[in-house]
């Protein structure tokens, strides 16, 4: 489904709607990264400003990141990523909205390691696809929730057209790695 630009409502605007149960968790320093190997060497990109909110009451999670906040080692790669692949001026954000499956009450109350499936919608390049992935969680002694997830992103699925010049260089899919350290709001 192709969405119009800026259709996503910033989730913090919805914050007042969540007023019961356990506290919600938030991060503005989420890490999103990917890497792949080409004939010309390893390409790595990382974004350290993904924002995300997690509600342990129902397992809902939202994440948003700026495409232009992905930083590459080389300026040329960053320009090609934003201008020729992601068209970041037209589609400035990637957004995930989903829910953990099978959580029970109070499961995040005590320090422990957990794993859940997460199901939801990932919007990249203005195109939304359903995703179902494993997530691992660590509830820290200090109450911080750490979670990690890897999402397979197939370029064609999101309408990302690879220029002919790069067709033999770029992979058809990349693995997006997410690492989030949530703190209580």
């Amino acid at each position, binding site marked *: 489904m192709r969405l119009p630009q800026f259709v996503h409502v*910033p989730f913090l605007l919805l914050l007042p709607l969540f007023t019961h149960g356990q506290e919600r968790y938030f991060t503005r320093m989420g*890490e999103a990264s990917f890497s792949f190997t080409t004939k010309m060497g390893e390409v790595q990109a990382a974004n*350290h400003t993904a924002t995300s909110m997690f509600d342990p009451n129902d397992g809902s999670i939202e994440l948003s990141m*700026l495409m*232009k*906040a992905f*930083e590459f080692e*080389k*300026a040329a790669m960053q320009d090609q990523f934003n201008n020729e692949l992601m068209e970041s001026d037209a589609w400035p*954000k990637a957004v995930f909205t989903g829910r953990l499956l099978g959580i029970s009450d109070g499961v995040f109350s005590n320090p422990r390691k957990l794993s859940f499936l997460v199901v939801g919608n990932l919007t990249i390049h203005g195109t939304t696809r359903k995703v179902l992935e494993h997530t691992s969680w660590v509830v820290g002694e200090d109450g911080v929730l750490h979670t990690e997830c890897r999402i397979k992103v197939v370029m064609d699925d999101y309408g990302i057209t690879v220029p002919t010049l790069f067709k033999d260089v770029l992979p058809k899919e990349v693995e997006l790695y997410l690492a989030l350290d949530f703190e209580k709001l």
Partner: protein
Amino acid sequence: MNLRNLAILGALCVLLGGAWMAQRQYDRAPEVAAGKWPSATLEATDLLQEFMDDEVAAGKRYTDEVIEVNGTVRGVSAPQGGKVSVLLETGNPLAAVVCEFDQSMSGLVPGSMVTVKGYCAGYNLDVVLQRCALVE
């Protein structure tokens, strides 16, 4: 060396020089804000407000530009990845201007006034500035 060989040598030099320059251009790291003239100077609160009022218009005005922002430090964090983020107060407890630095900012403490310039990456509840430099 006859004229023909000289011409071949010259062409080879031009080709190698071109390839070297192209490789140098390709290997160039993303530019940092240090030493760059900002396209705008404003308060952190005003910058956030502009994005909240009209995200598209503010995005067109500031994204990819070096902007200089004055503000009060709310906090400094150094998550994994080697980047240091300095958060500037905006008057909105849920939003900040996030300034990413490549080096330690241990001298900055909450409450101190700073002027930062950086490349604007856009608005994602926070306004994000990257490859920042402190303005003395």
